């Protein structure tokens, strides 16, 4: 079991550019979550999917952030017109459903300069 795989592990992008982050959940897990991690805010919920359907995107900054799950083996988080305040570690997690145990990937560190 390879665990949750996130790519890229590190990304540096210029202000105003687009950044796309990928996540491959654990095979067989029905739910995929995206969180943003910063020192100041801790782990902030962004969005989640269950059986590929978007369930809750209440944490997403609506104007520039979007997430998709086109198939059960991967999800993407896209940030358009990146800003320095978007710099953070973006964590993806998957879950088998009941019991809420999340299995996290190692994250994608985004730096906007």
């Amino acid at each position, binding site marked *: 079991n390879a665990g949750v795989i996130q790519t890229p592990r590190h990304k540096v992008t210029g202000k105003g550019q687009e950044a796309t982050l990928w996540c491959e959940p654990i095979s067989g897990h029905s739910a995929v979550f995206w969180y943003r991690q910063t020192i100041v805010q801790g782990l902030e919920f962004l969005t989640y999917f269950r059986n590929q359907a978007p369930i809750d995107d209440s944490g997403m900054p609506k104007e520039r952030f979007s997430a998709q799950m086109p198939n059960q083996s991967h999800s993407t988080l896209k940030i358009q017109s990146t800003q320095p305040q978007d710099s953070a570690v973006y964590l993806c997690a998957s879950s088998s*459903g009941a*019991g809420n145990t999340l299995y996290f990937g190692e994250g994608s560190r985004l730096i906007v300069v």
Partner: protein
Amino acid sequence: GDSVTQTEGLVTLTEGLPVMLNCTYQSTYSPFLFWYVQHLNEAPKLLLKSFTDNKRPEHQGFHATLHKSSSSFHLQKSSAQLSDSALYYCALASSSFSKLVFGQGTSLSVVP
């Protein structure tokens, strides 16, 4: 809405002393509570979670008791080890299939 509060940002302890990390929560429902641990350059992983039948969860010497009257789920360990140095997050879920809401985290540093 649901929220979790961890009052200590940084806790520094001498090896062998007891550990207690605070966690309080607000929720409209009767939530499930969790502790996650994140070692440096690693992914967060589940440390322990509350049971529905009031049993006290334990793992790797850590334990936590859910007190609904005070809305708390403090993490404790009788004797800190150097390897316990990590970032600890308390979290809640309002139902079995809902998202987890995390606190801001407590960084535990255990020194010799």
